[in-house]
């Protein structure tokens, strides 16, 4: 899933696919004075790094919208840390052999916090809201995929019909982006959901009390909550009375607020601050490798010079990724080898180990073979009098300082073998314009997610920029397309995993892209905070947290 803005600050998520714009938050603040962020009394003060672009997950594009609304909006199923799907608001489900119809039996006794019962009609109202043109969904509609309609069989049975098989639907159904608003809220306040606060009403263990854009969002415990998923650490009402999420976009503000005790926990701690934080006043760090696509360099395979496998291999051999990773992240992050981070369910375990070799000699030999044998006054390679120059556009506001340093490291490594890499700063719209036209040689970004079907958005020939995908390498590989299509069409989990494994190996063989490093989600917390765990997406699970 796309991560934006400051989330990008963390190398993790970073970057760019030109992450759009700035996420202003929308919002209306309550007329009542916002509660002051005092400690104790079961209140957790949590420093979040990104502000949502919308508080309606059905419309939003920011990953943080899902992260912060998980305590309010719940889903049909829950995804366990190993990627398996467990019951939640749906007790059980069946899939037709053609993979086109998913029938869910809903749990009884579940209510929204406004008193409306959760039933099949509520599921239909929500999925129809996600796909309505008016919603202009930036993420949720993509998760629903080839959605046709939802059929209310009886109050506790609901059938979701698809127009094509979409094996990742079940995993997607566990996402907050397909979480359920109260049908009453959808009916009366569809135009207000993006503003957040009391307009957003769900079935979760917390209610959304208020939001002050640019400052904070406040959540209160719901006493009659009794339907936690089996993946949760406990049942019944939440341990915290309330959660005050402070929107601290600057890394320095977030870390400072934590060390000075103005927040109890803070997320997305930059790697270079971790060593200093650990143990300071008992501060602990809870971490988990971010699943999904690592920060990865995509080479434009649709035009010269990277339409030639040898040119791509040369670049891959030329860069000492291990050295750069160690230098920038001070040993906190690991080098990546595969298109999916090893913490992603379905990642090929072979690609957790070295998959190619750093060798300038091999890089130079390949470049000689390709005929780039001349040298110009600046020491760059030339062929027929033309310098070997490639361009990498990037969006300054979305690329974290660390990722930019990384890009400069790669630029320097390529210069050593005679390749000029130009880093071209653009604004978001400018970058999307260029990538949409395919006018670039190198593009880099990361993408958080917990399902191997991410690979489809990144490597399927129909998923180009602007066409509903982010195929950064502009890959048109019939073999990969076939495997990806088969994986979406099969309901057999083992077969699916095997197909995705083949895709991953082929991507590495063909050097379409090279991953740089695997970031971790680091949440730092004071000793009085207990039970903080990170879920399958490496997001903070607020339900299990207690404060002494």
């Amino acid at each position, binding site marked *: 899933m*796309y991560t934006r803005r400051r989330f990008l600050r963390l190398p993790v998520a970073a970057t760019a696919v030109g992450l759009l714009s700035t996420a202003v938050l929308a*919002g209306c603040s309550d007329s009542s004075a916002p509660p002051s962020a005092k400690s104790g009394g079961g209140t957790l003060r949590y420093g979040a790094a990104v502000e949502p672009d919308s508080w309606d997950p059905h419309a939003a594009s920011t990953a943080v919208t899902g992260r912060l609304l998980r305590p309010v909006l719940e889903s049909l199923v829950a995804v366990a840390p190993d990627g398996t799907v467990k019951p939640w608001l749906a007790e059980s489900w069946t899939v037709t052999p053609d993979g086109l119809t998913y029938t869910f039996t809903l749990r009884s006794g579940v209510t929204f916090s406004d008193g409306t019962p959760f039933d099949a009609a509520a599921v239909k109202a929500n999925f129809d809201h996600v796909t309505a043109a008016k919603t202009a969904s930036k993420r949720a509609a993509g998760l629903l995929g080839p959605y046709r309609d939802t059929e209310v069989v009886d109050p506790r049975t609901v059938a979701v019909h698809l127009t094509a098989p979409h094996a990742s639907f079940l995993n997607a159904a566990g996402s907050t982006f397909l979480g359920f608003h109260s049908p009453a809220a959808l009916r009366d306040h569809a135009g207000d959901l*993006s503003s957040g606060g009391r307009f957003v009403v769900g079935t979760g263990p917390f209610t959304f009390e208020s939001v002050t854009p640019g*400052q904070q969002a406040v959540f209160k415990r719901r006493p009659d909550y009794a339907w936690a998923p089996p993946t949760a650490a406990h049942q019944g009402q939440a341990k915290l009375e309330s959660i005050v999420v*402070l929107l601290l976009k600057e890394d320095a503000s977030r870390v400072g607020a934590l060390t000075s005790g103005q927040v109890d926990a803070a997320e997305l701690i930059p790697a270079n601050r971790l060593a200093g934080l650990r143990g300071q006043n008992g501060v602990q760090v809870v971490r988990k490798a971010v699943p999904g696509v690592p920060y990865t360099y995509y080479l434009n395979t649709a035009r010269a010079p990277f339409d030639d496998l040898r040119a791509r291999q040369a670049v891959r051999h030329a860069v000492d990724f291990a050295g750069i990773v160690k230098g920038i992240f001070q040993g906190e992050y690991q080098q990546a080898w595969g298109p999916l981070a090893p913490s992603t369910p379905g990642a090929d375990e072979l690609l957790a180990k070295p998959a190619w070799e750093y060798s300038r000699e091999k890089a130079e030999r390949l470049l000689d073979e390709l005929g780039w044998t001349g040298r110009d006054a600046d020491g760059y390679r030339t062929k027929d009098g033309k310098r070997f120059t490639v361009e990498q556009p990037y969006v300054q506001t979305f690329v974290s300082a660390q990722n930019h340093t990384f890009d400069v490291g790669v630029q320097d490594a390529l210069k050593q073998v005679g390749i000029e890499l130009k880093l071209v700063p653009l604004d978001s719209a*400018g970058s999307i314009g260029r990538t949409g036209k395919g006018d670039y040689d190198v593009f880099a970004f990361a993408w958080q997610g917990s399902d191997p079907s991410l690979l489809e958005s990144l490597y399927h020939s129909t998923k180009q920029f602007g066409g509903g*995908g982010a195929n950064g390498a502009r890959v048109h590989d019939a073999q990969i397309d076939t495997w990806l299509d088969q994986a979406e069409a099969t309901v057999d989990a083992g077969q699916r995993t095997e197909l995705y494994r083949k895709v991953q190996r082929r991507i590495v063989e063909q050097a379409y892209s090279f991953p740089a490093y695997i970031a971790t989600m680091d949440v730092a917390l004071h000793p009085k905070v207990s039970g903080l765990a990170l879920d399958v997406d490496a997001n903070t699970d607020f339900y299990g947290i207690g404060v002494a």
Partner: protein
Amino acid sequence: MADRVRQVPPWARFAARRLAAGLVVVWGTLTVTFFALHLAPGDIVDGLIGPGAAATPALRDQVIAENGLDDPLLVQYGRQLARLAGGGLGWSYQLNEPIERLLGSQLGPTVELALAALVTALVLAVLAAVLTAGRGRAVRGAAGVVELLMVSMPSFWLGIILLTVFSYQLHALPSIGADGPAALVLPALALALPLAGVLAQVIRQELESADGRPFVLTARSRGLGATAVLLRHTLRHALLPLTTLAGFVLGSLFGGAVLVENIFTRPGLGRVLANAVGSRDLPVVSALVVISSAAFVLINTAVDLLHPLIDPRLREGGPA
């Protein structure tokens, strides 16, 4: 008719003329903003939707149709003018909510921050100038260095330093939010110090140039002490040029707020503007441009109206 015109006091006629000219200024600013955002490379709809997988052709068409982005530029421009002329700010493209709601909760904190910073800057500047004007070379040199430092410090950096020292190290003041006066101290200082540096330089120069002027000699010859002359006459003389800096001050406060609000995690218009420009959210940018240029016009008009009150020489029929 002629009688009625004569009944209108001159200051009101002046104000009306200035406000009419002000409308032209607001219109011009809006026009430049509109075309600048359209001329920047890249498509507005891309800025609105964002990157990657979100941008399906269907969604693109939907967003274009919803916001009328496929109409000719002049039609869009006319629609924008018509809506603003009607007093409506419209809807944010990107946030999908009415701009009145978006700005409503943000205007208060920015005004509060700007006023606090303005008062702080004025007090600091007057104090610094009065204490150092006409003193020995060492004192003035030192003051000059301090002022230059303050002027040169970006408020972003200054904000981080203030946070580190007073909030993170000394735990004296909160680093976040906009609740209560304590939370206002550090952001107001970060905004005020660079401004105070500029103002102090101007005031001291005025104070020093007044030395030896006839009105000072006259006052001294009436037996007034140096301090009394300074406070009653020279300072008043020195403050007048400051009012002409009102536009600069307003710009510096609003521009600084963009950075300061981000560092201190305060709600506010500066933050909204920065975000809206980044995503080319034209209706929001236009609304803020109209508000800020209107504020600029109003403040400058008010200052010009107040001039005669501060400076008797400018009063009609007053001493020349």
